[in-house]
């Protein structure tokens, strides 16, 4: 049973999140401003914090800063601010993920699960690294077992999708155009198959990403190609 602290000055939002996460089997603690949140963190064992940014007394970013002085508890920021610089700023302060309001409950749950799995099962990853294993962040591709896991959760891919993902992960950080992917995965020049590759990649994204429109691993560089983000 993991303890999740939900911090938001809007009681109804906290209430809704509580309902969703309780259904997933988490224990929920509630706070309505930053100071309350810090008090609860100091007196309870908390595994994850969902933190709103715009709050009275102490806002989310200040709370996060104070928290990071002595705690490594994972934090998901939850904010109506959806600008890139808001997200980057939050992540740079030490947040583990960022969700914009209004959020999709399924996405929230997926991100909570993902962050918790990464945080809790960090040590167990070592076992899987044996054999032909390629990984970035929480994404692991095992070429021997043909298994793909994201944050420890197995994902079912077709053979073609697996080959494309494996190729991109083997060369993580590098951008490949559709013809290059075709040549490398099929070992032949592909004419007319261009948007089939694009469809496959979209399918992969839909399977391995929590929000395929804002992918974390399989990035689309429009007009250039695709790449797997190299996460340490």
């Amino acid at each position, binding site marked *: 049973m993991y303890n999740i602290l939900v911090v938001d000055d*809007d009681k109804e939002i906290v209430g809704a999140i509580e309902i969703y996460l309780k259904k997933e089997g988490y224990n929920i603690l509630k706070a309505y401003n930053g100071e309350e949140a810090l008090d609860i963190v100091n007196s309870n064992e908390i595994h994850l914090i969902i933190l709103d940014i715009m709050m009275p007394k102490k806002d989310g970013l200040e709370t996060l800063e104070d928290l990071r002085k002595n705690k490594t508890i994972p934090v998901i920021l939850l904010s109506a601010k959806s600008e890139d610089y808001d997200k980057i700023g939050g992540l740079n302060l030490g947040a583990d993920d960022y969700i914009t309001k209004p959020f999709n409950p399924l996405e929230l749950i997926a991100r909570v699960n993902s962050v918790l799995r990464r945080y809790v099962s960090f040590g167990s990853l070592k076992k899987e690294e044996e054999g032909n294993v390629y990984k970035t962040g929480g994404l692991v591709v095992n070429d021997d077992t043909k298994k793909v896991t994201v944050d420890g959760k197995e994902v079912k891919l077709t053979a073609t999708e697996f080959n494309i993902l494996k190729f991109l992960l083997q060369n993580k950080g590098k951008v490949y155009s559709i013809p290059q992917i075709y040549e490398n995965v099929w070992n032949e020049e592909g004419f007319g198959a261009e948007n089939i590759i694009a469809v496959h*990649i979209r399918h992969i994204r839909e399977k391995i990403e929590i929000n395929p429109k804002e992918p974390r691993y399989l990035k689309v560089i429009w007009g250039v190609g695709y790449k797997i983000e190299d996460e340490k």
Partner: protein
Amino acid sequence: MYTNIKSEDYEQEKQNMKNKKVYWDYVDGVVDTNINYLDNENIKYNYSFIYAMEKQTDSSYSISDYDIYSSCDVTNAEEYSAYGLNETLYTYMLENRTAPIYGTILSIGLLIVIAIYLFWSIGHKEGEEGISLNSIDRVPYEVLVFVCLMILSIALAVTANIGRTINYVFLLVGALGYLVCYAMCAIIGVTTIKRIKAKKFIKSFLVYKIVRWCYRKLKILFDTLDEKTTENKKLFWYYLLFIVISIMLACLFYTGIAIILLIGFWIWAYYKIKKYILDQEKIKKALKDIYEGKNDVRLNEDELRGALKEMAIYVNDIANGFSNAIQESLKSERLKTELITNVSHDIKTPLTSIINYVDLLKKENIQDEKVKEYIDILDKKSQRLKKLTEDLVEASKVSSGNVKLNFESIDIKELFNQTIGEFKDRFEDKDLKIEVGMPESDIKIKADSRYLYRIIENLFSNITKYALEGSRVYIDVTENNKNKDNTNSNNSHNYINISIKNISKDKLNISSDELMQRFVRGDKSRYTEGSGLGLSIAKSLTEIQGGKFNIIIDGDLFKAEIDWPMSQ
């Protein structure tokens, strides 16, 4: 002795001549002659001749030393000769001395009467008031008189040389000549009278006109000197000073140093003028920059002097006002964007609760179909509100230019393959067939890949929403060369044209301009999903990246055209 007489006996010849009908001899102041009116009594007739002869007597070549004998054959010639005619006329005149006097008085009287009549009547036309002037009267007076006198003198010369020769051709020419002479006199006379009567006599002189023109120019020059602030005044005095100094130095030419000084002075004056013109150029350039929209134009006022300094101050003021206005408008755009962003934050928080609780309601085990339907409506509307809020922020950001662009080289073919891949399932759901036309060669453009994708995404998303099911969608990319004859030259005019065509499901009873405006959509779509900001965002995003976005509606054909500058 000079003679043409061949005979040796001169005394005999002299006697012979004396014996002829007429002779005239002058001996010691006494005339011996047989011409009765040339004798001593009438000698005054030829007085001057006698006087000359008497004068000669004093000199060494006294006339008394000479005897002149001349003779001519006058047999039967007396009554025809000029001599004879003169003699007859003289005799007549001596007998009728008073006759010419009456004639003359009569003539003069008539002349005066006619002249008065002419003077009175000239220039008046029947049925017209005042003096009517014709084209001759407008010719400058002295020019006219000169020309007339020239013609007159030529005519006169021709006529006079014909003399007394009696010949019909000559007579005719002579008559014409006199006619011309009279005509010239008449022209001069008539025009003179007309001009005097029209009170334009003096004004019609060319000299008068020239003098008046000079006077006016000088008057303008000196009038401007009266105005205190004009540059003209300065220019005049500077110029005067220049001339005076030049003349003074020129007068000292023989000193040698003056030449050097004069040349030096001229060069100095040239540099002064040159500096003035260059300073003027600076101001002109600054004005041009302002005109072209640069707002960081500033002139160094201390470098300039006089009127140019004044101009520079004005230019700087304009530039300041201009850049202030731009700053103001940027600021107000930013404030607007900020306001919209903040408002959207405030909307998003309650919206989150609505969406979440509607979602929770959906998961409740509700049997009532009506309640289910209501919840469904709430769900759709709250989702639309979410989309609307997001698009509103984006539209305001993009249209105010409040976005950071990150340009990179984009392969158009790759972009469309990726985008079509993204939309393939949604196109297939609507049974839309995609027909892509691409050139053989690779096409690279410079763009911010995320925003370029947003443009295509918005257009594709519109197609999935509004295209007629089962129809075809045409995507064509063409390379365009504005100077086709000269492809090797400057490539900067090249651009690519992306055209996306589809058939609308509903009648497009709206203009393309209206469609691109914010919040406007084709009639029916107002009741379905979407915010109506898609095309507006696409247009703004194209324009901030240097492209052109255009919508063409032709019946049910919906065509989006994007012109994008090609990268080198």
